[in-house]
């Protein structure tokens, strides 16, 4: 697809820029809510961090260090000042800076999300188009059954099934971890596949993909099933439209032009927002699957933070989730604006 620069310029001038600014404001609102919530919940974070045997005066000192003795708005003020210096405050579980913790754990989750997104999008495009082009056929029926099963079974059950079948019984894929232990790879971006490509270590790249296969498939199946149904029904609807008859009546090749071009593109306009939402919500859905595959992602850090009332950890994780959500949505908006001229040119229909 050709994208000329003017189109992109137009996008950034108007809608997307507005979206980004609005998103920043809502991020600030999100931080305020989660900051307050984490602090008004019962329980004494300083005491929980230092343990029951720590002397009271040390715990009191720790409270003062975290500004927990100050009113809430003062705490938020200090937190904001820290934020603009790129700090999220000390974690009460690892006793490190939360941003360092996140930088440590997030890449593994991001890598997983990336591959889930790739599987999900390609799978949806292929399966949805196949069943949309031939509604009522045997393959459409089979995909329908697959879709219902896929939607009904939650990701962590898929994770258990896949791990049991392909790793325990068949032994085709590794059950846990991101990389085989004999492979040494320098940490550059933290995304193992990308690091492997940067260092030109092809073995490590294949090994990383091999480890990624099961967890990303487990996370992708459900969403893919749902999106396949949406793309299918959009295709079926669009194939009955007059413009498809127009192109057929002019003798254009039925699959290459009529279905894959003129029916698919308008159908994508209704499918892509759903794909976007599903990908964004992965950061939350990934928790269980990461635990099952012992994936060194953000889930373990997140769960410990919640259980131990790690104030700064909780706020940090929620903010990261929010940012991922917003970034995904902005990307989806850009794709949609490219696909659908009615948004781009501000049409009324």
């Amino acid at each position: 697809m050709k994208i000329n620069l003017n189109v992109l310029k137009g996008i950034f001038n108007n809608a997307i820029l507005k979206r980004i600014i609005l998103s920043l404001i809502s991020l600030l609102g999100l931080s305020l809510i989660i900051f307050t919530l984490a602090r008004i919940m019962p329980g004494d974070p300083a005491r929980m961090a230092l343990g029951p045997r720590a002397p009271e005066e040390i715990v009191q000192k720790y409270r003062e260090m975290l500004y927990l003795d100050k009113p809430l708005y003062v705490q938020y003020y200090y937190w904001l000042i820290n934020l603009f210096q790129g700090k999220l405050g000390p974690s009460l579980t690892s006793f490190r800076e939360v941003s360092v913790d996140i930088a440590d754990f997030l890449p593994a989750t991001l890598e997983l999300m990336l591959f889930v997104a790739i599987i999900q999008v390609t799978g949806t495009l292929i399966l949805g188009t196949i069943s949309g082009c031939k509604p009522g056929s045997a393959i459409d029926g089979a995909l329908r059954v697959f879709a219902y099963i896929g939607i009904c079974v939650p990701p962590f059950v898929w994770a258990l099934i896949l791990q049991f079948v392909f790793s325990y019984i068949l032994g085709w894929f590794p059950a846990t971890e991101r990389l085989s232990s004999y492979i040494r790879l320098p940490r550059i971006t933290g995304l193992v596949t990308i690091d492997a490509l940067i260092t030109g270590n092809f073995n490590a790249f294949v090994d990383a993909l091999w480890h990624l296969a099961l967890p990303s498939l487990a996370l992708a199946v459900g969403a893919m099933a749902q999106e396949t149904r949406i793309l299918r029904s959009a295709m079926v609807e669009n194939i009955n439209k007059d413009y498809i008859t127009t192109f057929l009546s002019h003798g254009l090749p039925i699959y290459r032009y009529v279905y894959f071009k003129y029916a698919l593109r308008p159908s994508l306009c209704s499918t892509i927002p759903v794909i976007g939402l599903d990908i964004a919500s992965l950061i939350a859905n990934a928790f269980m699957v990461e635990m099952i595959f012992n994936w060194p992602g953000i889930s373990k850090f997140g769960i410990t933070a919640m259980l131990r009332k790690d104030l700064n950890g909780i706020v940090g994780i929620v903010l990261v989730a929010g940012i991922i959500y917003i970034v995904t949505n902005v990307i989806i908006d850009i794709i949609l604006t490219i696909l659908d001229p009615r948004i781009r040119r501000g049409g009324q229909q």
Partner: protein
Amino acid sequence: MYENLLTVKDLFVKYKSYWYVYHVLDGVSINVKLGEKVGLIGESGAGKTTLLKSILRVLPPQGKITNGEILYRDVNLLNCSKQQLLEIRRRKIGMIFQDPLAALNPVFKIKEQMLDIIKYAHENSGMNKRDLENIALDLLRDTLIPDPERVLNSYPFELSGGMRQRVVIAMALASARELLLADEPTTNIDVTIQAQILKLIMDLVKKKGLSMLLVSHALGMVRNMTDRIYVIYGGNIVEEAPTSKLFKDPLHPYTRLLIDSAPKILSSTLGEGIKGNPVDYRHPPSGCRFHPRCPFCDQEICRRAKPPLIEVDRDRYVSCYLYGGGT
């Protein structure tokens, strides 16, 4: 005197839904001769569009042609090779659709859509993109679009209804080298430009020497544009006559009522309309499909057997027992 260009013989078309079978076309036969302009009139739901779509084999998947023959010159479109069918769709027959907005894909530029169509209409002619674009511009100029360059670079939703219909006509002309099928080309556009569009189609058909099959329920329009008319009711051709004779002296009761019920600008009273409901295709009436609504139906045979299309005068055919055909 004329060579037969398109012949439809005894065509039966059914639509299947989950619960019902709709018996729409019930043995329709028509023909269009080379250079002739033929009209097909009838109320909404009479099967006019179904007939046109059957000719190009672009019925929706629920629609099935169960019997009959569609000959284009000597090619039977119902059992010809795929390549022959594509050849006819690309380079022989062009079709103008009812709703100019629905007939254009909303998310592609006019240019993209037109060039794809023209590319296949001029397949194997070794033309580059520039040539194809010039053909598109010429076609748009033919339809009297003031600035074709701008229209080519617009999306359908950026154009007015009249403009869109001109684009649809231009697209149809890309494929119509011999026959133009026009499916109610003015129903969905503004009244004030309907006449312009009609005149445009007339002029283009004359200029390019095309034959035409015009489908409509606007009688005035068909009267001015055609040489010969078929009247269709409930999936049956009930009358066929040269245009002037049909309007002067309609024979079939349905034709008479149809012409009477058309609103006339100079009359102070409105037409009567036709009492009763259009045919329920799930359970079409036995015998003559018009008999439940027919004011002249007094014979038992009307309910029993379908009246044959008989020649009552030179070039005039009617399917009604009032003019014979019964035993």
